[in-house]
């Protein structure tokens, strides 16, 4: 479009603001599209204008979108975290932005306690807690090492991790192996059964998966996780709260190689039974896939695209392409949704986990239309799921044609959250999530929907404004 088009024929018009003008245009027979406008948060208009005026922005965001759409994700190995992530004894990774023990939520504390016990660094929970509180151990965000962790996201050196690479960039991402549901470490549980399961995962599950993945790799058949994500989205999974189809496809694709690798049949049966009994097993493969997609957009000066959304149970944090690894945080909200057993809203901890990387990459809540069952978490109708996805197009930079949503005529999922669009629209990213018990040791209490606090996006826009070049 250019000005000539404007002068050619009767214009159609978009009206933002005073309704009187739109009414006057309609009275003249003009086709008017009204904007449902709300002011951006108080005190942000100057910074928002400054960022929107950054001459690098349009090209930087185009590049970010191009890179996200070009990224791939192949499962190339399953390894010990100590090797893959260079984790020393007493050093842990966790979900979300950095946090101290004093401010850590119940589930994060519970998961750290469990990890200390699993590593044999304390004789019991009390000692583990005492040592954690006294500074005997260190921890940092998974994202600082290119990894992602669901819920508390705690990774310790003796755990095993999936290793995925993006063949287009050579970039690598990691995630722990999914433990199942209920009383599990990532939800903050650390009882003996939790530790026993972790030991089994290290001794049986990790090595079995490794032998299969390496066998596949050796014959040049790396498992293409992005292809699985594309299929699962078409099969009713959104990749965050539903990973059922993805889990089954993963098993289908990997099983022959595990068999060929000669894993003991009885152990293999345990492994298959474990994976088959856990509809979320593929989440820990979808997450690093999404991390590779979002990492591809990182560190482009002037870009306003969000590259990380993550929560530690206390703070919600985001990172934005144009400001590199800087965190912008606000208080994590408590999800609204459905509860297990007789747990209720008072039992739920505020939002936790790196799993919002799925929304950051354009699936999860952003692909809700592909998984309408999810909308029942908030008592909604199928139409609400479609509306949720459609609304996300208003705050994103591009659409990922590789991840088509059948019911939207296979339209690509909304991809690449733009902080300036979040501020200008007042629409917050839709996140599907699990809910951990508030108290350390409880485990999962439910699942539901949540949004980030607006503060994260305000902080990012202020920082982008400060980093914008002087206008000539």
């Amino acid at each position, binding site marked *: 479009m250019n000005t000539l088009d404007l002068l050619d024929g009767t214009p159609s018009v978009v009206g933002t603001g005073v309704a009187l003008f739109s009414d006057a245009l309609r009275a003249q027979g003009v086709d008017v599209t009204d904007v449902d406008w709300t002011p951006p948060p108080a005190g942000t208009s100057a910074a928002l204008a400054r960022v*929107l005026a950054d001459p690098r922005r349009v090209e930087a965001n185009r590049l970010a979108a191009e890179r996200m759409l070009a990224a791939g994700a192949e499962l190339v190995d399953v390894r010990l975290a100590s090797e893959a992530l260079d984790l020393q004894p007493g050093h842990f990774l966790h979900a979300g932005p950095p946090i101290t023990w004093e401010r850590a939520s119940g589930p994060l504390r519970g998961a750290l306690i469990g990890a200390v016990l699993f590593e044999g660094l304390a004789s019991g929970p009390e000692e583990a807690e005492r040592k954690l509180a006294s500074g005997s151990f260190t921890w940092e965000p998974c994202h600082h090492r290119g990894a992602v962790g669901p819920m508390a996201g705690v990774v310790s050196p003796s755990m095993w991790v999936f290793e995925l690479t993006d063949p287009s960039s050579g970039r690598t991402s990691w995630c722990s192996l999914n433990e199942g549901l209920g009383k599990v470490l990532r939800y903050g549980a650390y009882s003996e059964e939790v530790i026993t399961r972790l030991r089994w995962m290290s001794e049986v599950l990790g090595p079995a998966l490794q032998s299969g993945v390496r066998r596949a790799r050796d014959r040049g058949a790396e498992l293409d996780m992005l292809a699985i994500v594309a299929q699962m989205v078409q099969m009713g999974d959104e990749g965050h709260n539903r990973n059922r189809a993805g889990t089954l496809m993963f098993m289908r694709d990997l099983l022959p190689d595990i068999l060929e690798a000669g894993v003991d049949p009885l152990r293999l049966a345990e492994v298959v039974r474990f994976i088959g009994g856990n509809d979320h097993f593929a989440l820990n493969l979808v997450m690093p896939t999404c991390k590779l997609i979002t990492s591809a957009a990182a560190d482009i000066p002037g870009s306003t695209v969000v590259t990380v959304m993550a929560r530690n149970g206390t703070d919600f944090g985001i990172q934005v392409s144009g400001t590199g690894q800087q965190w912008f945080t606000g208080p994590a909200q408590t999800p609204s949704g459905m509860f297990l057993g007789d747990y209720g809203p008072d039992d739920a901890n505020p939002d936790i986990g790196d799993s919002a990387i799925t929304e950051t990459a354009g699936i999860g809540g952003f692909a809700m239309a592909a998984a309408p069952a999810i909308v029942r978490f908030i008592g909604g109708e199928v139409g609400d799921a479609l509306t949720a996805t459609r609304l996300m197009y208003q705050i994103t930079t591009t659409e990922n044609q590789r991840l088509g949503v059948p019911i939207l005529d296979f339209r690509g999922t909304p991809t690449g959250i733009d902080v300036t669009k979040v501020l200008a629209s007042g629409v917050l990213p839709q996140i599907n999530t699990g809910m951990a018990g508030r108290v350390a040791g409880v485990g999962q209490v439910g699942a539901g929907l949540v949004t980030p606090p607006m503060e994260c996006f305000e902080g990012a826009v202020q920082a982008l404004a400060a980093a914008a070049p002087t206008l000539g």
Partner: protein
Amino acid sequence: MSATGTDVHHVEVRRGRYVDSVSLMQVSATVAATPGVHKAQVAMATELNLDVLTGMGFEIPADAGPNDMIVAVSAEGDEAVAAALAVMEDAVASIGRGGGSGDTFGGEPAPRTTRWAVERSGAPLAVVSVPGEHAFAEAMGALDAGSSVLVFSDNVPLEHEVLLKRTAADRGLLVMGPDCGTAIVGGVGLGFANVVRRGPVGVAAASGTGAQQFTSLLHTAGVGVSHCLGLGGRDLSEAVGGLSARAALAALDADPATEVIVVVSKPPHPAVAADLQEYAATLATPVHLVLLGAGQPTITAGVEKVLAELGVDRPDWPTWGVPDEAPRVSGALRGLFAGGTLCDESMLIAAETLGDIRSNIPLRPELALPAGLEHDGHLMIDFGDDTLTQGRPHPMIDPGLRLARLEKEAADPATGVVLLDVVLGHGAHADPAGDLAPAVTAARRTAADAGRELAVVISLCGTDADPQGLEAQAAALAAAGASVFSSNAAATRYAVALVSGGQR
């Protein structure tokens, strides 16, 4: 988590009944909310759910497997259990029934930003009228999505205006405004605009009421307008440098329907005016600059020049209620304007004869009215100025402030002539004379009761196609005793003649 001893526990296994787990969580919540029910869980018998059920105090048959559905209820008595099971059946059955609203596929959510609305609609133009500090984001969104934009908002920071216009220039788009109240694009009036016939004259105006006066007089002379593009009152200032004027001229030059281009502006920065003149000379379409200023032609004169170039005879600009013999008045000239450019033009004309005119938008800074807008000599007030419209509608819509001032002038023995503008067209008050005529009658009576003659002169900007009805408006005002002119310049000259002793 154990059941109380008095409750009835009901557990049943439904073999091979598969329902999605999320749906079952919803069913469980519904059943648990049934009166008399203390605990309820409807779930597939997966390992996790068996743990949950056991934890809630239910005993589950050992042979239940992941493909079986467990219904577990703990309630006050058998009746409550039966009621809970009925609720459960209904809730499970409703899962397959689809959405209650019938709108299963949902709707496209309303656009939340100008950018998205432009992307979805493909509209070539956005009209932004949000508060000034937020206008930049919406206008930039329109430019990002590839549309031109009319920014009606006032109080937009100057640097925002420059940034928007530079961006538009880079992308071949047009920014009209900010503080652009008037435009006519493809025959459509945007904001305040008179209904004028279509024709060969393209107008670019850094002035809202200037554009309305120009296009209305053209229409009255029988000549039409191709487009009238608003530039915003600051466009020809030194800071903005005529960025939109150039863009508008380029667009009009390329427009096959435009044969003559006119630029109408409040007093511009001299260097910017010179640059624009230079640029205009490079275009294929002839360009007339009607730039208000001391010694410069009036808007009416500008219209007459264009008419001459098009070979159209200049009409007698209509008047209503002008007596053959002018009344004898003494006292000062008091101009009360809704249109800033009309106020500027009147001050320029009046100053030639009367000397200094005080104003809230003075021609020279030292002529500024004090805060109360009071002065015992000649004065003119622009009630449309930003400082007087904060928190209230424009005087073209809301006559309140102006009517109050008219009443005050009527009571002031120093006032000889009151000069008012009335602007018709889209966006303006539906019946300005309905409010103003009685006020004029009252004002003249107030003066007469005090033994004075108060003359009321009105510059009526409008066309015979305007929704308010030009003739009816003029007749009502004339009947109230006002002398009504369609040319603001003519109205001002008449008013000046009245207070300067009959020189006309």
